């Protein structure tokens, strides 16, 4: 009988597929949040496996802040074709073409274009379940996050009102207007994601790989000058550096790291040998409000 064993990756894969199928079966209008990052890539890949040879039975949603990297937009188009999925794109109409991280600051920009935009999109399409690629190992406050995370009709997360989750039985009962966020990658770690990307040969945005890119250094963080909307300070001249990104978000808010890693193997190698944790590259986490507060407010 000993032949019937599953590696940890195959177990994680099976569990994620189980969750994705449960949600597709029990909710009326599920949607998969698609951030164009590597975790989204893994999640999308799992969704495809869950329903093969059929099509993914729900759309993707990209809440577009208009400040993502150019390469991310290119990649988004590519993915829609490759996976034959419908990607709904939502830009908060109230902030469209007006709000930028430069004019409004990172916190306000994120609040309006991302957090508010997401709520608008969910309301607009009447989505009752939204898949997100968050993992429990990302941050201490996520260690207790459920796989099904309940939101009231105002998308608020009430930490006191989350349901116990036992076995692989998920309680999908909600009232009209309420919704859930679902995290099928809850039990994956950063290393698992990379191992899986490698094993499955899943495409990711090239920004994850090191290349010569124009950057400026601000408060110790390397910011890429992705287009000419970025106002340069007096005397600031973009320099070419070989850099890569550990996480992807809005380009003015995402720090690059200097790196030589051009393949997944080399990225993992660097990751394991460096001694700083992953989220440091993300400028917004330095903001005052804690992750817990952001979550209560409907941020992923």
């Amino acid at each position, binding site marked *: *009988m*000993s032949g*019937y*064993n*599953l*590696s*940890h990756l*195959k*177990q*994680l*894969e*099976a*569990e994620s*597929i*189980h969750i994705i*199928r*449960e949600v*597709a*079966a029990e909710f009326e209008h599920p949607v998969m949040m698609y951030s164009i990052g590597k975790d989204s890539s893994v999640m999308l890949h799992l969704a495809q*496996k*869950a*329903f*093969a*040879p*059929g099509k993914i039975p729900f759309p993707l949603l990209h809440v577009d802040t208009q400040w993502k990297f150019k390469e991310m937009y290119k990649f988004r188009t590519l993915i829609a074709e490759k996976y034959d999925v419908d990607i709904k794109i939502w830009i908060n109409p109230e902030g469209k073409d007006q709000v930028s991280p430069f004019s409004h600051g990172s916190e306000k920009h994120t609040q309006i274009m991302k957090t508010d935009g997401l709520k608008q999109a969910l309301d607009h399409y009447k989505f009752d379940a939204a898949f997100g690629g968050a993992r*429990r*190992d990302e941050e*201490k406050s996520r*260690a*207790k996050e459920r796989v099904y995370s309940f939101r009231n009709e105002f998308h608020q997360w009430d*930490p006191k009102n*989350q*349901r*116990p*989750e*036992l*076995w*692989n*039985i998920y*309680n999908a*009962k*909600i*009232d009209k207007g309420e919704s859930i966020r679902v995290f099928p990658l*809850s*039990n994956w*770690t950063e*290393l*698992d994601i990379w*191992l899986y990307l*490698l094993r499955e040969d899943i495409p990711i945005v090239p920004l994850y790989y090191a290349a010569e890119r124009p950057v400026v250094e601000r408060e110790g963080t390397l910011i890429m000058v992705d287009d000419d909307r970025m106002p340069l300070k007096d005397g600031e001249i973009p320099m070419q550096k070989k850099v890569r990104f550990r996480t992807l978000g809005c380009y003015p808010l995402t720090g690059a790291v200097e790196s030589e890693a051009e393949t997944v*193997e*080399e990225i*993992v*190698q660097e990751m*394991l*040998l460096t*001694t*700083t*944790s992953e989220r440091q590259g993300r400028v917004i986490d330095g903001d005052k409000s804690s992750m*817990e507060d952001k979550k209560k407010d409907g941020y992923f």
Partner: protein
Amino acid sequence: MSEATYEIQEEALIRGDIAEYLNRHETKDLLRILTCGSVDDGKSTLIGRLLYDSHMIYEDQLDKIRKDSKIYGTTDEDFDPALLTDGLKAEREQGITIDVAYRYFSTDKRKFIIADCPGHEQYTRNMATGASTCNLATILIDARHGVITQTKRHSFICSLLGIKHVVVAVNKMDLVDWSEEKYNAIVKDYNAFVSRLGFSDIHFIPLSALKGDNVVDHSENLAWYDGPTFLHHLEHVNISTDRNLIDMRLPVQYVIRPNLDFRGFSGTMASGVLRVGDAVASLPSRQTSKIKAIYGPDGEMDEAFAAQAITVTLEDEIDVSRGNMLVPVNNIPHLGNEFEAMVVWMHEEAAEAGKSYLIKHTSSMVPGLLTDIRYKVDVNRMKREKNADSAGTISLELNEIGRCHMTLHRPIAFDPYEKNHTTGAFIIVDRLSNLTLGAGMIVDRVVSKPAHKKAPVSQNIVKSHSLVSQADREKLLNQKGSTIWLTGLSGSGKSTVAQELEKELIAQGRLCYILDGDNVRHGLNRDLGFSMEDRTENIRRIAEVSALMNDAGVIVISSFISPYISDRASAREVIGDSDFIEVFIDTPIEVCEQRDPKGLYKKARSGEIQQFTGISDPYEAPQSAELTVKTENMEPTAAAELIIDDLRSRGLIG
């Protein structure tokens, strides 16, 4: 340890051969660990120590903790590992809900998921939640205090949730002078009460979470202990035999229909092994088919096993949808709407007998009643407690555990939790608030259980050998003992054919005997009704009697509706394939209903009789009977001739 320095696990391999490193890590397996202990036993310290010593902590996190240790640290040490897991105290201060927290770490042997359950008043709910997915439980004991009430309580909940492996971590050995006697006394105490709990594997390790002794590295101080360290044990404990690989169960989650030619049934294998070509039944409809193809995450495959997420296609177009379960035709779970279960209550609003709830079990959500709370369990003393209040009703409060009788509106396919965690577990959902109120583990179905079901063949019964063989008797009778098994709907003509057949065989000098409802139901099977279980038992006994009579050389004519393929298959097994002649009395139901010799169809239609085959209970027609007799346009005598010809052609009569 005063100066925490950062070391990278397997650094040489990562630098030298990253591909090999990744390869090793891709194939490692997964262990899920539950940690339980009372407040201050050192749980946070132990987990922090594991994370730290297995080098899962980044330098920047460590820096912060070194700073925090000076301010918040609970120890004199420069570095307090408890702070790595954001200890309970801090959470209390911040008013964050006390919940199960999941932590991750890995070594080159295994990936580990820790379900960290705070030792707080909410222990039962949180522990049950955490334990539901874990392979192994770590029970912390403070060496100074030894086995206390909470130790027993935690152990009991682990056993209730079916955890098989336990590690008892006797912590704070530094505070008892690393005393072997103290440790031995604790081991003895723990063993004394735990024997009743049925863990298959219990391991004791003396350690000091704070100082690191025996956590990852062996300890000089505990040189008298020659077992593995805590981490070494976690890396090597064998869990591969924990899964049920015997009873194939595939609860259907989702039906995939990309086009008219493909209808795939998706789900996660709850247990067992499934192969292409296997004969399966869909429950509750009991329709049967064969597995045509199996698709896994990596494409088509020949077989699938427990915990894989798969999609299957079937040879025949039968009705299968979400909430159904595919099972082997010869190994079916219980199908019923009543069962008894151990229920853990998880909500402030108490459970009440007589109240209706929603029950989610595998992929189906069914309304049902909590019919009765039989008794509560006194978790501290691990005993049942009868705690009826003055009105005589029992309620189940938050964090209490009770044995409950459940009655659902629809039947579900289930196994006892002990045999099958996935098909034996359910959650209880409130119909109004939608909240998850409780979790249940099915103990058994509810039927007044005849002793024969439970009792295995006693070791003391030895078959005695007769001096005369079956062949001797058959020679005497000039015939072979065999069973002609007539199956068909009520009113199909089984009895008439049986009587004609008997008459004709006797006329030809053959010793034969009819077994039918009239002579079996009134005596041997007087205690059985018409539920699925009882029908199955009815057939089992008839098969055993037939086999004995065949052994005596007698030709048995068994005339029973015997509607289920699986039952007839087991009858065939009991009697022996070559002596078993399945004859399908094939009469369309319309004709049977028209004949209605005993007025039963009318009663079934009006609802007066329930579970009536063909009307309110399924009849599964044979797929490959030895003989099919269509009685519609045939005289009973002609049917009897047909059967006799068949017996002759098989050499059963001379």
